[in-house]
């Protein structure tokens, strides 16, 4: 049995159905200049929130055989400013502050006295490329224990000799593959790769893995997130 309707009724029915699509117009908010930035910030923030949620502390990043390594001379030199800020290695210390029991200046030898970890892991750049490198260093988690860090604090922040700065969530800082790296490819870190100390974090995007570290702070509040994050890149960017 088929229902019947006259032409006018059919038209008004169609109009009503069309009006039901008006929620789609809400997407137009993305085209309004004033709303666009906050909306995209919220979208990126949501992505970061999900990223932090799916991060698994015990899940290891893939590791690779020596045959799969990118040759050392093909490992890209990336920085935001200078290729080598020329750190005075003899006078270098890592200055620790914040929620720690033993704040102060730490020498490289103190970091090198911690168990040495060597790993072949992938370094992924936000641009879309990646390389596999050989990195050696101390676990950041071991160093945090050494300095008596409050690991219930939310963030680790670092400052660098080239005025670069970065921050790291505590869960990632405690990940077993997160290293304070002082050797690449079995050789002392070169000036271009962050001598004398850099971060290697196979669970994070490249820009989180700061080079030429000079200061580290354990904190619950971030004044600034990181050089690239503060330009509009993802704040968490876990892989």
């Amino acid at each position, binding site marked *: 049995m088929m229902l019947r309707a006259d032409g006018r009724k059919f038209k008004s029915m169609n*109009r009503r159905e069309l009006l039901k*699509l008006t929620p789609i117009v809400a997407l137009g908010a*993305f085209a309004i200049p004033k709303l666009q930035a906050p909306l995209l910030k919220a979208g990126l923030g949501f992505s970061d929130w999900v990223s932090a949620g799916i991060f698994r502390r015990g899940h290891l990043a*893939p590791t690779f055989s020596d045959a799969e390594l990118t040759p050392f001379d093909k490992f890209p030199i990336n920085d935001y400013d200078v290729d080598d800020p020329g750190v005075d290695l003899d006078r270098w210390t890592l200055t620790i502050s914040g929620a720690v029991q033993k704040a102060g200046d730490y020498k490289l030898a103190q970091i090198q006295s911690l168990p040495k970890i060597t790993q072949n892991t992938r370094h992924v750049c*936000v641009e*879309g*490329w*990646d*390389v596999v490198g050989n990195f050696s260093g101390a676990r950041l988690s071991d160093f945090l224990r050494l300095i008596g860090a409050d690991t219930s604090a939310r963030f680790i922040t670092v400052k660098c000799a080239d005025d670069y700065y970065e921050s790291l969530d505590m869960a990632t800082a405690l990940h077993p593959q997160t290293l304070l790296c002082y050797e690449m490819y079995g050789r002392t870190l070169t000036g271009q790769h962050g001598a004398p100390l850099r971060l290697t974090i196979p669970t994070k995007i490249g820009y989180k893995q700061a080079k030429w570290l000079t200061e580290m702070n354990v904190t619950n509040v971030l004044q600034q997130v990181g050089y690239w994050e503060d330009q509009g890149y993802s704040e968490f960017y876990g892989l």
Partner: protein
Amino acid sequence: MASRAIEINDAKTGELSQAVYEHPLIVRLCHWINTVALFVLVGSGLQIFRAFPSFGAKIPQEDLIHWPKALAIGGWLGGALQWHLTFMWIYMATGVVYLAYQLFSGNYKQVLFLPRDIPGVWPMVRHYFFFGAKPPVKQAYNPLQKHAYTSAIVLGVLSVLTGLVIWKPVQFSWLACPMGGFHYARLWHFIIMWALLAFVFGHLVMVVLHGWNNFVSMLTGWKKDPEYPSE
């Protein structure tokens, strides 16, 4: 299908015509929101691609394509990532809602391409591309349409899965394996985008060929004078 068909009586001419309620509101909403999301994702994706217009590792590598900035969204890499990482949620949400609706309503039966539809594909291709006779219309979607729509959904799912691997190669390392690894995920993601665009092109050609009533049905749900028999 054609659960809601009506007969329209034109007051002026007294002519009788038929209409069927073809696309429920939820499908129409998903269709159009997803259209916007796909547009943004393609545009911002191409801007992201511009940052490293190649595939594989960064061994000094040649740029494959110089995609023009004017045909991309976001202006710079960080901006494009904001668009991409925002609209991917809208894209996935409409996909999930659409699939859930199709599944629970049983509507998928009229559009899902099954092996029994295979023999009907060639006659439709012959009709569209080689001026063959038009096969009799028996159902809302002909075998070629079912093939196209089912493929589009499969491509949509694959675009999400390959995207997840690019976004989270560590957390979804298990998903990278069947794709041939991290590098292939990016290549597949790129190829799937072009496949989806090819679908969109074909879809738009068909929309133009099939006229106004067909187009309106995706806006109001009602299709006037359906070609297939209504109950």
